[in-house]
């Protein structure tokens, strides 16, 4: 069973979002998503300063076997990207909710987080995808 931390918000496309103390939002892919992809070998980030709308393509994660797009869970401006993933993409597998984060955005409207699922909702989505 994959890990689904209760303090995060989740998008249908398997990204997580965490509201930080400074009001920014950190984004990554879920434990379920990294497990489904397998060994991650390559990550393509958005540009710092890029304006993203919710559900817009924001990057790509490639495993040995498959490529998967990453979507912005909420609208905002990209503040930072996790450059460490360029040389150590396997961090996405090892620590998807920690050091394996993808990018941080300054949200246009932090209330958009409410449109995302909570941990329980995401767990239900995973359970229904299994069947």
């Amino acid at each position, binding site marked *: 069973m994959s890990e689904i931390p209760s303090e995060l918000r989740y998008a249908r496309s398997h990204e997580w979002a965490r509201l930080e103390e400074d009001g920014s939002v950190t984004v990554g892919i879920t434990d379920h998503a990294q*497990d489904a992809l*397998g*060994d991650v*070998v*390559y990550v393509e980030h958005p540009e710092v300063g890029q304006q993203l709308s919710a559900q817009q393509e924001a990057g*790509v994660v*490639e*495993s*040995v*076997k*498959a*490529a998967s797009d990453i979507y912005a869970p909420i609208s905002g401006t990209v503040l930072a990207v996790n450059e460490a993933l360029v040389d150590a993409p396997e961090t996405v*597998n090892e620590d998807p909710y920690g050091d394996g984060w993808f990018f941080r955005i300054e949200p246009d409207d932090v209330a958009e987080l409410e449109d995302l699922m909570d941990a329980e909702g995401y767990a239900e989505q995973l359970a229904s995808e299994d069947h």
Partner: protein
Amino acid sequence: MTDGPTGALRRTALYDLHVAAGAKMVPFAGWEMPLNYGSQIVEHNAVRTAVGMFDVSHMTVVDVTGAGAHGYLQRLVANDVARLKTHGKALYGVLLNEAAGVIDDLIVYRHSEAEPLAYRVVVNAGTRDKVLAWFERHAGAEVQVREQDLAMIAVQGPEAVARFEAVSGWQDLTALEPFSALSRGDWMVARTGYTGEDGVEVILPGAEAQKLWSALAAAGVQPAGLAARDTLRLEAGLNLYGQDMDESTNPLESNLGWTIAWQPEARAFIGRDALAALRAAGVGRRLTGLVLEGRGVIRGGQRVVTGAGDGVVTSGIFSPTLGYSIALARVPKDAQGECQVEVRGKLLPVRIVKPPFVRNGQKVFE
């Protein structure tokens, strides 16, 4: 072999051992098979540097016997089974349809010492039904074609033969030539594989396969799943049926011309006339290798842009051994050197190379 709970997917004799080892099980060609046991890169590297093992019991094992077996396979297989001079010798080849499209690829083993010559044939899992129907359709009174209910374990890697000998008690395998097999009782041990490494493939009854698998695991052999099998075979430049060739492609445009036995000229194998006509007219495409040394990963289905026209990627992966992406692609025959692959709307520079990419743990292309 038993049906799964849904009745739809079949399970090999080793299913419970895979689950107990934490394998991620996925549907594959009608079977529930292990994709990986955690990390496909760890599994891949174990095979390249030491030893790994694969459950390949989903492969279809068919014994062809009877007074007409030899002539039958000379008609069905585009390679010539007359090349199998002694018991246990193996031959890689393809089955062609009348239009010279590839029905399947297979290994044929000579499975008898003396006349009448008997053969064991191993074909793919995904093609099982159509190949068995094709065999049935062409069999005559003098030929018996019987699918065998046997398990199959591939032990692969530089340490594979020594480790298999130590665990199984078989002692004479280091002298066994590549593409040859030994049979004892219900066991057949062949020096063959799909990884570009030394190793054996063992065909045996299911209950004994469980014991062998457990003993190999206890001796430190890394279980490896379908995902590692795919990266290993692609590094080794080996085609995958259904991806790199199928009934819409002929062997000459699938890097399989070497498996066609044109001599003796009198041997009328199915597809020969159509293939000879294609060869005479000139085949416009070829299957070759691509490497992308920069960032990014080439995937099957992507467009290849060359100076001689467009081609298409048939299989593409990130190569764990090389640390960059490699692929097989079907390109115009005159395409060479530098070209480009369209990856998500961007044209990335790639280079055409002659496969294989990796053999015995080492990079082998220029």
